[in-house]
């Protein structure tokens, strides 16, 4: 009886990771990691600083060498918002926001860019401002629009709301949620916001420095006991319905 369900599940399986090991400069960062992601899921990666969340993303994106299996069942169009792609890098570049969007493989028309800037809560006049002169939060919003505008099928967001003000983060996440629903996206997310994890994730993958992993639905993972294991300290958790 279970069989049809199982075959359905494997049909829309997007990514299978098995026994993944990643070392950087001789140091083991990820150890024997296994998990699966189906098309249309939101996988949140949770864990303390230095647990290897960004390393995991970069490995899945094919940017780092690894041992084990990373099996993409099709080659999806990927969007990536790296952590810390902050203004420091952009400060020195003589690029307006418009120029910044023009760097994409398929550059968009201005109206399209304006539409996406509006979606993330930015005014039209930002287009002609120097990207480096935006505030930290504005810059981050601009990057979210930059990733979304090329209609990726899979998005990797590494702490997308860093530096965005209270409420602003909400805006970005509810925007992401809308786009996720409309476009049947698969999202890989790193965030420290447990509320977001609870509200939006299909599955949670937790990592910590000691190689202790857990993987499962938020309801299974987000309890005081598991979080204590992952973060190595008491985490207050408020139950949601």
């Amino acid at each position: 009886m279970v069989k049809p369900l199982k075959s359905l599940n494997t049909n829309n399986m997007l990514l299978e990771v098995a026994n993944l090991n990643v070392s950087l400069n001789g140091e083991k960062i990820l150890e024997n990691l296994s998990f699966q992601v189906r098309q249309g899921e939101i996988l949140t990666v949770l864990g303390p600083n230095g647990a290897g969340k960004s390393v995991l993303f970069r490995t899945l994106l094919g940017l780092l060498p690894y041992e084990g299996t990373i099996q993409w069942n099709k080659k999806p169009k990927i969007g990536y918002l790296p952590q810390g792609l902050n203004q420091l890098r952009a400060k020195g570049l003589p690029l307006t926001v418009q120029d910044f969007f023009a760097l994409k493989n398929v550059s968009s028309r201005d109206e399209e860019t304006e539409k996406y800037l509006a979606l993330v809560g930015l005014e039209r006049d930002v287009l002609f401002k120097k990207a480096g002169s935006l505030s930290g939060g504005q810059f981050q919003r601009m990057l979210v629009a930059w990733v979304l505008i090329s209609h990726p099928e899979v998005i990797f967001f590494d702490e997308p709301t860093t530096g965005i003000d209270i409420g602003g983060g909400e805006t970005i996440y509810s925007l992401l949620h809308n786009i996720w629903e409309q476009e049947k996206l698969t999202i890989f997310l790193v965030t420290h916001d447990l509320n977001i994890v609870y509200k939006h994730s299909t599955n949670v993958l937790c990592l910590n420095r000691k190689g202790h992993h857990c993987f499962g639905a938020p309801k299974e993972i987000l309890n005081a006991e598991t979080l204590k294991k992952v973060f190595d300290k008491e985490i207050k958790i408020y139950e949601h319905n």
Partner: protein
Amino acid sequence: MSYQLFLTLISGVFIGGVAGYLGTLMLSKKMSAVAGPLAHLAFPGAAIALLWGLSLFLGVFPFVIIGAILIWTLERKTKLPMENLAAIIFAAGVGTALLILPIGKAEEALVGNITAITPLETLVTIILSLLVFYVVRRVYKKMMLMNVYEDLATIEGVNTNLYNLLYLLSIAIVVALGVYLVGGLITAALIAIPAASAKNISKGLLSYKISAVAFGILASIAGIIIARFTQLPTGPIVIIAGVVLFLISIIFRKKTF
């Protein structure tokens, strides 16, 4: 205007322009740290050309091209930063040059001899400048994205290895041309200064590119003409003209921002 001055000016305009254009890509540390060492690789080439009585270009060109390919290969093999490797290659180049270059003849290698450029060399200069201009134009967007964040470029499907090679080869060609105009010692400045000046006064990419090319051409023309009337060596005057334009751009920047 004499025919020779005409050839000199034409070559100067092309070299200055394309060097300025190429320089606008050197926004990250990695990118900008490569041109200088590569330029100094011109020394052994120039030394050999002088010893054997060859055209300067024939001596310099193979050296910088081989240098560029060496840096590129070593980067992929050793994963060391490009700027480190460039520094090693640079030391090898200058060391070798000091061994074989007759010091009395060093002036041409140091400050260039654009005022003695032949019609054939001028033609080669024009063709190579246009070639580099074309290549840089083709790789521009993607190199700029690599400047912003290399991972993003990789994910957008940019073959960063190929682009790094094209970029290094472009620098090598411009450096080989620059040796004529300003000599091996200060060729890197020919690439770096116009872009720095342009960055001072530009808000967007288009004005940045256009003004860097304009600054490069302007410095070349000014340098060549001033050198002719003052009987001073052309190369250093071109660079000084570039520096003066840079200083002016700083003043301009303070007024506008």
